[in-house]
């Protein structure tokens, strides 16, 4: 067949608007943002004088940004462990021929259907620690009522950051060998982030559960039977037969969840805001603040570019891998 048939032309015309839209609104806009991050555009009037990487260098000296990076690392690690742990546990339990399995599944998954804003508003009320005047409230009050008062704490209002003290033995040693930076409060764990992780896990763990349930469905019953015939206990069967087969699912879950945690924004806005001493602040929030409230467009563009590079590092290999695997099928 030579040249273009009429159907071929029509097929290209059908998809052209979307291709152009994605080319402009995704790739063109990303290019514009990356370019803006190299300029001096720090007020409402655009100023495209190039300043090299100065905006990036400056970011890494700003207290708020360094706190944001720390919080993102903390959030990502805790959120991944919690979602994968809870999701896998619930999926395996539901895989045990449970009565009312459908009901349980619906209950674990329904938070996925609602907005992070609603989640944030409700969890802020639940975790509101109360004050000395009002007494405890929320979950703290619940703890008191059931005799677990020692579990009370400030939740998202607690500015504590766990980090290595410079005056401790190890800290002094690190200082002497030139690694004193590791004792800064930017290398640590902000406790207030735990509250946001709790709300985010409430919302998203059902997603990992659904992924694992879909994976478990795909495992042939014969494999389980074979393990049982070989005398494996249920536990051994899961540990040695099922879990290794679920590994690809864990990998996709890690990639999807990690990229969500890099982008997390809505939940922080509605639940805690930046928090005391930026204890719950995240880069996406800082970007919004500095760009659309502070009119520092080049700085906002630099944060956005850093976020994008982080997400692309995770997603691009994954996309290449999954689409290639499909093409070779």
């Amino acid at each position, binding site marked *: 067949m030579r040249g273009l048939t*009429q159907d*071929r032309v*029509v097929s290209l015309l*059908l*998809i052209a*608007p*979307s291709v152009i839209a*994605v080319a402009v*609104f*995704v*790739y063109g806009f*990303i290019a*514009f*943002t990356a370019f803006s991050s190299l300029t001096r555009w720090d007020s409402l009037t655009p100023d495209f004088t190039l300043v090299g990487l100065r905006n990036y260098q400056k970011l890494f000296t700003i207290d708020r940004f360094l706190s944001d990076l720390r919080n993102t690392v903390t959030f990502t690690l805790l959120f991944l462990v919690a979602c994968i742990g809870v999701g896998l546990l*619930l999926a395996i*339990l*539901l895989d*045990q021929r*449970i009565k009312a399995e459908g009901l349980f599944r619906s*209950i674990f998954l*329904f*938070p*996925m*259907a*609602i*907005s992070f*804003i*609603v*989640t944030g*508003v*409700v969890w*802020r*009320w639940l975790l509101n620690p*109360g004050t000395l005047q009002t007494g405890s*409230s929320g979950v703290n*009050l619940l703890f008191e009522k059931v005799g677990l008062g020692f579990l009370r704490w400030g939740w998202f209002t607690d500015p504590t950051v766990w980090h290595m003290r410079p005056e401790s033995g190890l800290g002094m040693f690190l200082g002497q060998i030139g690694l004193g930076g590791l004792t800064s409060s930017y290398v640590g764990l902000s406790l207030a982030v735990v509250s946001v992780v709790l709300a985010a896990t409430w919302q998203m763990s*059902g997603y990992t559960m*659904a*992924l694992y349930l879909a994976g478990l469905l795909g495992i042939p019953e014969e494999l389980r039977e074979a393990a049982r015939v070989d005398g494996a206990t249920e536990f051994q069967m899961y540990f040695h037969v099922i879990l290794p087969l679920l590994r690809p699912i864990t990998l*996709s879950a890690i990639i999807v969840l990690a990229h969500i945690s*890099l*982008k997390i*924004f809505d939940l922080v*806005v*509605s639940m805690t805001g930046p928090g005391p001493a930026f204890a719950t602040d995240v880069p996406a929030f800082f*970007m*919004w603040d500095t*760009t*659309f409230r502070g009119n520092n467009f080049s700085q906002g563009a630099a*944060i*956005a570019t850093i*976020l*994008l590079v982080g*997400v*692309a590092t995770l997603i*691009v290999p*994954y*996309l290449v891998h*999954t*689409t290639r695997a499909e093409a070779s099928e």
Partner: protein
Amino acid sequence: MNSRAGEGASVRWNRLGIYTILVLAAAFYLLPVYILFITGMKSFQEVSLARMWEWPSGLHFDGYLKAWFGKPSEGVRGLSENFLNSVYLAIAATVLSSVLGSLNGYVLAKWRFKGSNVLFPLMLFGMFIPYQSILIPLVKVLQTLHLYGSIPGLIFVHVVYGIPITTLIFRNYYAAIPSELVEAAKIDGAGILNIYRWVMCPLSLPGFVVVAIWQFTSVWNDFLFGVIVTSRPAVQPITVALNNMAGSYIVEWNVQMAGALLAALPTLLVYIFLGRYFIRGLLAGSLKG
């Protein structure tokens, strides 16, 4: 015999353990719903931190009335207008996105061309990007197009950034439909559009349901685009209005919880009645169509 009986008992204990964990987990997931309901049902006098876990004294709808209609004398905006904005926004964006996604998916699944294998992942990348990386030019372009600050502008944004996911779901859906059907129609002399209209469309209903539910839920729940594109309270979607309401110290907790429930209700209803399709969209998002 003895060991058999012992096994039976341990299996029963295991079952008990499993159900205990499941019930505790269910309690954890339902706790926020419980507090949402009881707080929303309380009267203004009953809302206090010390009594937040107690049942309301009766069914009070003042919270809902105030959340819906507002109270201009106290400077509290109601959510009714924003709720309707979101209905309009989500329905329009969903319809347009579904049509576009269906056409793209059809071409990418049944009319592959040189480079379509490269184009497809390039399009998909758009659904993973942090939208912060496109917000600055987006605002400028919308201002130039006179779409900034309006609901049509917001619809446009959702349709554009909905292209990757809707294309993905439809492409995987159409890829599962045997190509022989298309080939047979071609031999009968049907062109690309007629094949779409008479062969694919009649088979597309489940695909449309999955995509529509997915888009409706994500557009309804979106906050970032809403807060960036609309600045006037009268045109804001409900998530933005709810966040403003919750951030204001003059609004009581029962009103906030009532507002949160109103904002969650449409997508919750969709989930309750069409959950099966919702889960399919969810799993498609991790690329495992």
